[in-house]
């Protein structure tokens, strides 16, 4: 177990160190999120009532589109110098690599989510403070669900020529339960409804997370094998 944790940690450490130095993914995601917000701002306009109805969808559209970009780059560093082959050749439990890659993706996506939420409050002049605890729960659970499958599918498509096309086509249908639950829970949280009113959506999210995570851990080794 300790070896598994060390192996997973070294993968996160490596990915975050490379990202800190290259800043390729975070910079791209930040500017992409900014661009999305501009488009949303023009599309929705200043109508507060209209904004209240569309905000949960817009928020998650932003998270998911930037998430797709970030997740699609999960194994970019491994393509350089054939590191992908070297990962395969390392003896031992490959699921530690999956957990490490997933943790790196979750951290990156949560950073983008925090930035997006902050930018939303500025662009749309809204006060998210009362809904922050509920939003935090939805964002963490939603990000974990998105990243669990996303990391696995990124590995599946890493050595495919049309990976940029194939990755979202594979990922989005599987994400339907997560998308549904996150948007509904966010809508309720932003409307100030009591926790009991959207607890079932959070339960659905948690269940989807557990299923996706276990499926990822159990199947990653087979995805990696030639």
């Amino acid at each position: 177990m300790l070896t598994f944790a060390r192996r997973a940690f070294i993968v996160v450490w490596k990915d975050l160190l490379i990202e800190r130095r290259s800043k390729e993914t975070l910079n791209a995601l930040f500017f992409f999120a900014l661009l999305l917000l501009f488009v949303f701002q023009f599309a929705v306009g200043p109508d507060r009532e209209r904004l209240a109805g569309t905000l949960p969808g817009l928020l998650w559209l932003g998270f998911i589109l930037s998430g797709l970009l970030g997740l699609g780059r999960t194994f970019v560093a491994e393509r350089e110098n054939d590191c992908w082959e070297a990962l395969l050749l390392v003896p031992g439990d490959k699921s530690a690599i999956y957990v490490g890659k997933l943790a790196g993706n979750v951290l990156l996506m949560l950073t983008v989510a925090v930035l997006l939420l902050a930018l939303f409050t500025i662009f749309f002049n809204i006060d998210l403070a009362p809904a922050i605890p509920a939003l935090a729960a939805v964002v963490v659970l939603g990000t974990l669900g998105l990243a669990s499958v996303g990391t696995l599918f990124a590995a599946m498509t890493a050595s495919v020529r049309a990976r940029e096309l194939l990755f979202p086509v594979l990922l989005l249908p599987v994400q339907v339960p997560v998308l549904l639950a996150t948007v509904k829970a966010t809508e309720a949280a932003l409307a100030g409804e009591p926790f009991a009113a959207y607890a079932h959506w959070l339960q659905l999210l948690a269940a989807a997370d557990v299923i996706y995570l276990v499926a990822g851990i159990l199947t990653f080794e087979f995805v990696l094998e030639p």
Partner: protein
Amino acid sequence: MAADPLIRVTGLRKTFGNHRVLDGLDLDVRVGEAVAVLGANGAGKTTLLKVLATLVRPTRGTATVAGHDCARDPEGVRREIGLVAHGSYVYEDLTASENLTFWATLAGVRLSAAARAGALATVELDRAADERVRTFSAGMKRRLSLARFVLVRPRVLLLDEPFAGLDQRARKWLEEHLASFKAGGGSIVMATHSFGRELAVADRIAILAGGAIALDTPRGALSADDVQRSYALHTEDAC
């Protein structure tokens, strides 16, 4: 009595679509032996190494390393081998030290600072330990790639064109390193199409042509000219 071979390849066939790259290849490599596999471009040298490294599954036949079947027990094989292929297997945005730490930890080796420094000194990269690999030459990357096996110590080294891109000093270093690896009981299979220093390291020369080993002979029995003549003869046969 001769010891059991550490590597045994029997009737190996590999096809990609309709193209048969390897066809009935047999090869044995004993403990402490180095075999240079010579062949023209596209002869199947890299495919053979990839089958032995468990990166490519054979279509037919068997390949075993230290008794582990490459197709049925790839994890067992991976514990015994080190592969140095065309890619250097290093991350460009990490330093040499960080690359070693990463690969050693992933392989389950607890790496002390002294061991890491020692490995880098062995490949003469101690002065560049804290420099990012992005600034390294191809030869330096290849040496860093080999430093991983100073730490992990596999029983078998699989080398694809190991001397390519190395300067004279690095070639000499690699030759000495491979000789000491053999002396320590390690076995080597190296694929090449050149007649340089690889042949000095090799105990046996196997010429790959037409998907099979066309000639397998002890290195001592052949002069460099003999090797070139045999190579030309067999690779022309294959065309």
